[in-house]
């Protein structure tokens, strides 16, 4: 059974009234809209904005479930960003659980760096993680949403909760499979040959 976008409608949440407060912490799956071609991979970014510019509040850790339709998408890769320090350099720890249930992929990073260092290195917005999906058999024009799963939590530099003001999801639309370039050239040549022969006759 396919789960259509309506299932995820509730995941697009705008909290705290009609207008976001100053320094509104926004977590987004980007791009907001993209074509999804069956059989291809699609890379989406989990991003945050609204932090202080080289100032508090900084982000000390995050723990976010990404929700998607498992009938249409499969997670094939995941790379945490460097905004909380480099995982490879052990400035941060990748604590993501990964796929915890069909259609629920957990990503999480905890920084080892001090609050002052985080303030110094973090811009107001940066990529938390990139997630790569394999697109399944989505119909042309069919839409599906990659949004948020069962939980999303942020921690500031001191380990206190950092409220998320806005969550925005990404809407994917099924697109036709493009013809490979060599095949296109072959068809053009075939057409030209047909025209040439007709003229000869």
């Amino acid at each position, binding site marked *: 059974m396919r789960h259509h976008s309506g299932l995820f409608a509730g995941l697009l949440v705008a909290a705290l009234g009609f207008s976001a407060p100053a320094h509104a912490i926004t977590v987004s799956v980007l791009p907001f809209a993209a074509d999804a071609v069956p059989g291809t991979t699609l890379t989406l970014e989990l991003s945050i904005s609204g932090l202080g510019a080289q100032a508090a509040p900084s982000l*000390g*850790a*995050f*723990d976010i479930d990404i929700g998607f339709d498992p009938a249409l998408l499969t997670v094939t890769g995941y790379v945490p960003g460097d905004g909380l320090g480099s*995982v*490879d*350099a*052990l*400035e941060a*720890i*990748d*604590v*993501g659980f990964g796929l*915890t*249930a069909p259609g629920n992929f957990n990503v*999480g990073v*905890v*920084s*080892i760096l*001090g*609050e002052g260092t985080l303030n110094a290195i973090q811009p107001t917005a940066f990529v938390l993680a990139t997630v790569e999906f394999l697109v399944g058999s989505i119909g042309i024009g069919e839409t599906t949403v990659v949004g948020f799963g069962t*939980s999303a*939590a*942020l*921690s500031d530099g*001191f*380990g*206190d*909760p950092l409220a998320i003001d806005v969550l925005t999801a990404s809407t994917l639309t099924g697109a036709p499979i493009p013809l490979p370039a060599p095949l296109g050239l072959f068809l053009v040549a075939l057409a030209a040959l047909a025209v040439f022969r007709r003229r000869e006759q």
Partner: protein
Amino acid sequence: MSMMQRTMLGVAATAAIGLSGCFLQTISGATFAVGGSLITSVQTDSVLTTCVQGGSTGGNVECTYFFTDENGVPVDVTSSADLISEFGILGVVIDPLILQVPLDAGNVSGTYDDGAGLSGALDIQSGFRSIPVDTHRTLFAEPGQQFIIAELPDGVPFDGIGFVLSLTFEQPGDDGAVSVKPLLALKYDAGKQVFHTPFLPCVTDMTAVPAVTIPTAATPQPIPVASLPQGCNGEQYLLAGFGVFACDFDADNDVDIDDLVLQASARNAPALPGDRLDNDSNGFIDINDVRRCALQCTRPACATSLTRDEGRGFVRGERQP
């Protein structure tokens, strides 16, 4: 989505309640042997518990509680009930059953029945991914698993009574057999802290607990509780009086990445009172607790001894799978 209901019989209550025991003793700086096991001296006024007569007979652990009286003279008792009645140990509750089940198990309930008219609902807590064992160790659920704690309600008489415990939980889907891991522990409730010291089997690592496969069945399935060959011989549970790093969860006297990884593996779950993983003491282990502990690392860059040869840079990186 369909729900599969699983019901299982708990262990015979004689194993869970009457004949179990552990070595509980106030150490006053001496070193002496009891029951064939050497007890290493520890700090004055601390409390130590260990099973010194591990082994099992017919599924029952043959342990004895030992105490020192006010004059420092060793005294022994043979059951938790005696422990309470003779020494008035506040809050020592009789031997809960801990069951590790899949994380998606829900609607947990349970009953006790002595077969002679004494029956009722068990007190059930579920959703735990960590259980404090003693002042410096924690029992962690394996990946994708959670703990259920089942115990007799307050006021139910238990001394010398055998109960059959029955637990039921539901899982989404219909995936056939499921593996669970049972163990019995002594519960030590010190008010702000609650410890569960495993004794049947007497291990603090769930990978060492034998799994029991529960088939899909309409009738309750028995769950035997295993006793490992080494019993509890030599095991020591430290219940008070020991200063440890608040975020040292692997009991190696430092706070490093290994501790944070352990803590993170148990997050998004409720915490028992006094669980050190719940660093902000809000009753729930989450990413904020892990970040707080990251700020308490005692090693340079929070590196483990395997990941950094101190002062000479990183040797080998470690990452969560």
